[in-house]
């Protein structure tokens, strides 16, 4: 159904052009008095006004509120992106983060005036080390990939201290790994060597063994892996890499499945980043910056970056310089303080038993969805070994059942938009053709999971029925119809260009 309106608005959803398209240079939100006295800029004085859009304050506010109407958020509905752990961000976290003394800190304040903040960072470090069973922590990395970079730099530093940095250049990465893993290895000067997966979606142990040698620096492994499956050979993999003289980097992106249940240190992990914005409920993306603290084993602890927090005579101090041969600093100051407050609030409000239940409920929810969807979708690796074997925190499906109808994963994703859902992760992991990766997290109720499962099942039935053409042209109800993603990638237009350049120059 198409229904054209005179205004271009659709119901209460306002049509909104780009800010450049409706601003005017003559308008302004702030009326400043003309500067007094003669300009001292001389030849540097501006000859024409800057071609920036001018908006009054209500226009500027409405512009962004209108755009935000088209947004989707965890505060709006279930966000099933796999490997992203889009859980609810508790409001208690926000209250703590806004407390004076946390919210109005300056990183260069004398530390005698920031003892409370340092105490909080120290307490957070303690929780992270207790939960992971590891030796040292660097809080400062700003997000997951930055944490990976930090961990792999520490491995590099450890190899340099052993005099083996020019010899050990190969990093083993399973083919189902997050794309950031090989990218990190290359950014740190290593060479990536892919380890194939078994038919069951796990690391091929035989192939892994064959790749070991005295030129191997490390393995980068995610557990549970990107297929949402636990790697049962993880301890053997750790022992083998250690025996071969290499280190074990664990991608902590999927730690929500293990928190409180398994200590990565017990699995032989040497370094792991922890996405506070995943497992510990701090906001993702637009809602706030990420934070990716890294925990280190005894072997790597001496190579951890600065700053470190230590206690002396009952007071907290910052060690601003890293030790000899260690990674220097990951960023200018101490990292994302606001996220530390939120993450520790989350930990303290859950307690150790509550955090264990987080992992249990996250796995339970994913398995509930998998069980409801398995009769209607192909579940690669059977969702685990055997007919009824469980997945971990995310359920993996694909589009093979709909091949004859020509309905693909992208059509499910676009149809979900019409149903009011952000799509799941699509076409990842790459080892599964037409993958749909769904991570509901523990914060969705059974009623909400059922509503989503009902939608997915209805879509699967539609794909097999007479009405599948509707899915190929979805979305029909979203603010935008289906975008030409191929053309956008082949001929990207990355910035707005003035159409009336002449009129601006003339002013």
């Amino acid at each position, binding site marked *: 159904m198409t229904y054209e309106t005179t205004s271009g608005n659709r119901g209460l959803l306002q049509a909104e052009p780009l800010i450049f398209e409706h601003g005017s240079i003559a308008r302004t939100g702030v009326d400043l008095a003309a500067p007094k006295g003669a300009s001292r800029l001389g030849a540097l004085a501006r000859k024409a006004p800057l071609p920036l859009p001018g908006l009054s304050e209500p226009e500027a506010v409405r512009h962004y509120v209108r755009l935000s109407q088209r947004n989707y958020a965890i505060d709006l509905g279930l966000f099933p992106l796999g490997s992203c752990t889009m859980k609810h961000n508790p409001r208690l976290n926000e209250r703590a983060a806004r407390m004076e003394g946390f919210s109005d800190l300056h990183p260069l304040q004398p530390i005698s005036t920031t003892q409370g903040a340092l105490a909080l960072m120290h307490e957070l470090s303690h929780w992270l080390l207790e939960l992971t069973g590891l030796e040292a922590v660097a809080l400062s990395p700003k997000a997951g990939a930055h944490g990976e970079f930090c961990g792999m730099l520490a491995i590099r530093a450890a190899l340099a201290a052993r005099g083996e940095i020019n010899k050990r250049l190969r990093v083993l990465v399973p083919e189902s790994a997050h794309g950031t893993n090989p990218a990190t290895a290359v950014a740190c000067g290593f060479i990536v060597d892919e380890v194939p997966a078994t038919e069951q979606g796990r690391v091929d142990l035989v192939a892994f063994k064959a790749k070991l040698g005295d030129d191997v620096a490390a393995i980068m492994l995610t557990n549970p892996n990107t297929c949402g499956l636990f790697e049962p050979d993880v301890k053997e993999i750790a022992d083998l890499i250690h025996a071969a003289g290499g280190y074990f980097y664990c991608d902590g992106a999927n730690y929500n499945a293990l928190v409180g249940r398994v200590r990565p240190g017990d699995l032989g992990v040497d370094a792991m980043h922890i996405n506070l914005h995943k497992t510990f409920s701090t906001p993702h993306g637009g809602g706030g910056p990420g934070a990716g603290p890294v925990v280190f084993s005894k072997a790597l602890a001496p190579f951890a970056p600065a700053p470190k927090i230590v206690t002396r005579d009952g007071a907290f101090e910052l060690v601003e310089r890293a030790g000899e041969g260690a990674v220097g600093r990951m960023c200018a100051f101490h990292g994302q303080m606001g996220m530390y407050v939120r993450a520790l609030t989350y930990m303290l409000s859950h307690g150790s038993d509550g955090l264990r239940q987080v992992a249990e409920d996250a796995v339970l929810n994913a398995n509930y969805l998998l069980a409801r969807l398995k009769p209607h979708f192909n579940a690669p690796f059977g969702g685990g070994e055997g007919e009824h074997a469980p997945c971990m925190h995310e359920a993996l499906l694909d589009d093979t059942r709909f091949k004859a109808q020509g309905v693909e994963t992208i059509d499910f994703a676009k149809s979900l938009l019409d149903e009011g859902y952000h799509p799941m992760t*699509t*076409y*990842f992991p*790459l080892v599964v*053709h037409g993958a749909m990766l769904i991570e509901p997290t523990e914060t969705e109720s059974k009623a909400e999971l059922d509503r989503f499962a009902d939608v997915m099942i209805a879509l699967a039935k539609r794909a097999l029925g007479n009405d599948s053409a509707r899915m190929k042209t979805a979305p029909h109800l979203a603010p935008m119809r289906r975008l030409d*993603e*191929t053309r956008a*990638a*082949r001929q990207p237009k990355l910035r707005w260009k003035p159409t009336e350049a002449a009129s601006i120059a003339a002013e």
Partner: protein
Amino acid sequence: MSKRYTKDHEWVRMEGDVAIVGISAYAAEQLGDVVYVELPGVNKEIARGADMAVVESAKAASDVYAPIAGSVVEVNEALNEMPQLVNEQAEKDGWFVKLRPTNNTDVLNLMSEAEYAEYVKGLG
């Protein structure tokens, strides 16, 4: 000479003493619309099975491996402007790289057209 294929879906066709390499029509179909191809530098020496190029579609980026060892003689510059050639003519104008083989008989170790067709059938 007819084309030869690898299990990773590259094809090779010898033209005199130069090997023309690309990805198979099956691989192009599986990738979906190709939006970008990253090609190696001319004169680069590439070992068999080493990374030779990267092909990027709307769905994924994939490595393309050298089916035989050799040095790069020429790359298909047309793909910079028209990556869709990989979808439209995967095994003709959508070629990636011309290699001077380290060993002229290496290509004979790869699958024949019939063997590859059988292999693809097995992938379902």
